[in-house]
């Protein structure tokens, strides 16, 4: 019944072709309307209602129909049914939402039998009384999705997953918890069996053991007698020896699987653990180097800008056009050596070595004793010097480098990110995530004297720092309430130089 009113009601934008052509098509139906007097009556009534609506400014006919609850059908074949189903009025603010049903009696359309359940015309929009999610169903849906995903992994994912043996060198320091927690979370998500060999410098400590036990992973905690030295060069060498120690554990226990050298501060993509399943003997991956750890306190004009424009440096295998290993991509660190960090905890950028251990994975059988089918190009571990000097990269373990398999689309995919970032020497990081008991004195940041340069590292001071640290771990509850001024900065610095000054400050702004 919308013959003459349509152009006014319909919005100008047409997704379909209605507007311009409706008039033409509708004219033929005009005659049929005037033939029946009831239709004429309804047309006039409808017109009246429309005029009233125009005056009032809203469609009140729907309201009338709702109140009256009448149904009315038109016999003229060109009209829509005017059954008054109330729709959810978007303007209504009151909660009760109606669920009305479409008319069940079929429309008397010409040449259309009443056997169809589907009727043409206006229908109600069904809304249930509480149209919000049901938590039980949400959980059930998640269970369904989990099952579907498991099925997908079984069908399309890696078949015959081999166990993964992860070797991690670590040592007690401020950021150890941060780094290890990240690695723990990654390893918890790895599908299949994971065995974690943690080699700790300075002996197996309780704090590290605590963390490892809480992770729920299967681990082997091995202590390595010597303490970590302060300079990065020495640290790199020692870590290599620690990893060899881990390989010796694999050898003794005859562990089967794929060995991954995961350093605790690196970031691993889970795709990595799927990719390494395809390694046969020894594989190499591309590592992205996040060499800008720590603060960029030394900003030369040149150095800073150059760094900003360079793409992320990547270390890894390089292939020739036929997909075979042709060489290695390494990162030339010599331009940055001066600004880089030499000592741990000095807050400067730490640079990687030529080829990091993290980019290599190997089949654990390579290090077993007396394995017949071990390829000849791999040296036996016993051949190596006990001190293992000059073992900088795993390539030293090989007689022939060309047998290394490039993984990750021949090194084009980076699934592993290398980073070394350690706290400044004067940092006292709380041993847990919660600072309990709450801080006694809180000093606003602006007032805190901030040393621009890190304090000179003396070996004695470092040792005292470590002892301090260890004490903190042991006495969790017994926080000695000697002057512990921690300011609310991102880096909770406790400058010993400021000790004297702060007593003055605290009297001024005590909270």
């Amino acid at each position, binding site marked *: 019944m919308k013959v003459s009113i349509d152009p006014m*009601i*319909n*919005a100008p*934008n*047409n*997704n*379909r*072709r*209605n507007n311009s*052509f409706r008039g033409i*098509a509708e004219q*033929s139906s005009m005659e049929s309307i005037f033939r029946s007097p009831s239709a004429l009556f309804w047309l006039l009534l409808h017109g009246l209602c429309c005029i009233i609506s125009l005056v009032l400014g809203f*469609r009140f006919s729907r309201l009338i129909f709702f109140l009256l609850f009448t149904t009315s059908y038109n016999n003229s*074949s*060109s009209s*829509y049914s005017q059954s008054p*189903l109330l*729709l*959810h009025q978007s303007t209504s603010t009151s909660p009760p939402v109606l*669920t009305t*049903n*479409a008319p069940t009696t079929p429309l008397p*359309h*010409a*040449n*259309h*039998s009443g*056997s*169809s*359940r*589907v009727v*043409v*015309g*206006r*229908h*109600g*929009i*069904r*809304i*249930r009384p509480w*149209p*919000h*999610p*049901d938590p039980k*169903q*949400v959980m*059930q*849906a998640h*269970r*369904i*999705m989990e*099952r*579907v*995903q498991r*099925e*997908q*992994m*079984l*069908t*399309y994912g890696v078949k015959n997953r081999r166990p993964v043996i992860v070797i991690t060198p670590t040592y007690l320091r401020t950021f150890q918890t941060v780094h290890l927690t990240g690695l723990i979370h990654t390893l918890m998500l790895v599908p299949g069996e994971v065995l974690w060999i943690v080699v700790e410098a300075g002996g197996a400590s309780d704090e590290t053991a605590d963390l490892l036990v809480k992770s729920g992973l299967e681990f082997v905690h091995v202590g390595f007698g010597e303490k970590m030295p302060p300079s990065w060069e020495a640290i790199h060498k020692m870590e290599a020896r620690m990893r060899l120690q881990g390989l010796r554990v694999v050898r003794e226990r005859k562990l089967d699987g794929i060995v991954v050298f995961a350093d605790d501060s690196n970031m691993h993509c889970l795709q990595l653990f799927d990719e390494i399943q395809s390694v046969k003997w020894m594989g190499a991956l591309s590592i992205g180097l996040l060499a800008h750890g720590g603060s960029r306190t030394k900003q030369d004009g040149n150095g800073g800008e150059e760094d900003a424009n360079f793409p992320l440096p990547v270390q890894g295998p390089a292939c020739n056009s036929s997909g075979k290993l042709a060489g290695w991509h390494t990162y030339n660190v010599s331009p940055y050596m001066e600004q880089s960090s030499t000592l741990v905890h000095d807050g400067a950028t730490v640079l990687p070595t030529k080829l990091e251990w993290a980019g290599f994975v190997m089949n654990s059988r390579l290090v077993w004793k007396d394995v017949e089918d071990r390829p000849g190009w791999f040296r036996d571990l016993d051949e190596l010097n006990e001190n293992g000097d000059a073992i900088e990269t795993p390539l030293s373990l090989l007689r022939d480098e060309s047998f290394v398999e490039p993984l990750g689309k021949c090194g084009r995919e980076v699934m592993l990110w290398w980073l070394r970032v350690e706290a400044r020497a004067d940092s006292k990081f709380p041993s847990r995530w919660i600072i309990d008991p709450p801080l006694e004195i809180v000093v606003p940041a602006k007032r805190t004297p901030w040393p621009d340069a890190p304090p000179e590292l003396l070996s004695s001071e470092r040792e005292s720092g470590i002892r301090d640290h260890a004490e903190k771990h042991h006495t969790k509850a017994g926080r000695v309430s000697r002057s512990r001024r921690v300011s609310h900065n991102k880096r909770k610095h406790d400058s010993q130089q400021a000790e004297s000054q702060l007593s003055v400050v605290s009297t001024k702004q005590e909270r």
Partner: protein
Amino acid sequence: MKFGFSLVFLPLFLALFSLVAAEDRQSQHPERISGSAGDVLEDDPVGRLKVFVYELPSKYNKKILQKDPRCLTHMFAAEIFMHRFLLSSPVRTLNPEEADWFYTPVYTTCDLTPNGLPLPFKSPRMMRSAIQLISTNWPYWNRTEGADHFFVVPHDFGACFHYQEEKAIERGILPLLQRATLVQTFGQRNHVCLNEGSITIPPYAPPQKMQAHLIPLDTPRSIFVYFRGLFYDVGNDPEGGYYARGARASVWENFKDNPLFDISTEHPATYYEDMQRAVFCLCPLGWAPWSPRLVEAVIFGCIPVIIADDIVLPFSDAIPWEEIGVFVEEKDVPNLDTILTSMPTEVILRKQRLLANPSMKQAMLFPQPDQSGDAFHQILNGLARKLPHDKSIYLDSGEQVLNWTAGPVGDLKPW
């Protein structure tokens, strides 16, 4: 009925199949659509029928296409590709005496608005004029009054040639096509615009475009229900309640804040990729009950949730849709979340396995060049299943069944 037959045989076949495949549980290869219904998809129509293609003047086909090449990419492009397929197909015969079926290549859905939507107003006249041509130039139309002819009419309501349902119902199928076999995308039971014996086909979806957006199969499906499209058609149905019989609006109102339902009106660039990350894809009716969403859901392995009462899905005599998709009645839409989450996981996994079957996906596509098992071949299979023609379709000379002057006056004007 064939359906009942397959229901009986299906559990037996499945039991047999599962015994054989017991060791293969680990590998989980995609399940065959077993039973008498599913095997039909792999039939080869070549040699089972012969089709004669009428040579119509190019104003009926080529010239229209030249005027607007968009006809090749929209969802009604099946008529054009069917013509091209038949021209070079081995089932084509140049001798009309030995032909079982006759095809008239007239592109009735190619008169497009600037927006790209086809206008059906001239289509009845175009079709009528084409039939007049073939009935005067060849004797084969008058022999059976079109009973062994087939036409591809992929428009919204098929041969009713209108986009609005009331008008389409009012017009009914073009009287001249009453005896012919119609190959159309529209299908709804007990509807005027669906003749007995029509073949329902999927709408055209561009195969290369979909292939280009495939993602690795082990990408985990993390979206539970996915839908992108209109819920309210404000331009043509400002009051609401007409568009989609209120079903789409109901979906929106009930589930717009439900985290399991990823539904919106956006047009994301990652539409195809998102479908491959979803477990269920909604395929509700719009102005007409069919939509290309069904094809997309099948290709991307997303279980289609069909919300359209009485709909007849493509190749329903060859594809067991009940086993592949989920049918929800429009009145049950407010309970859609309960329905979907209460499905047992084995049922869902089985549907996914059936969807992974490559012959299922092939049957929904119109690839260029054609491949075996694709939608072209399924149409020919459907035509072949209707052979041999009943003797009664052949009329005595001079006998006329069709009324050439029936229908609205406007249709009788020459084109």
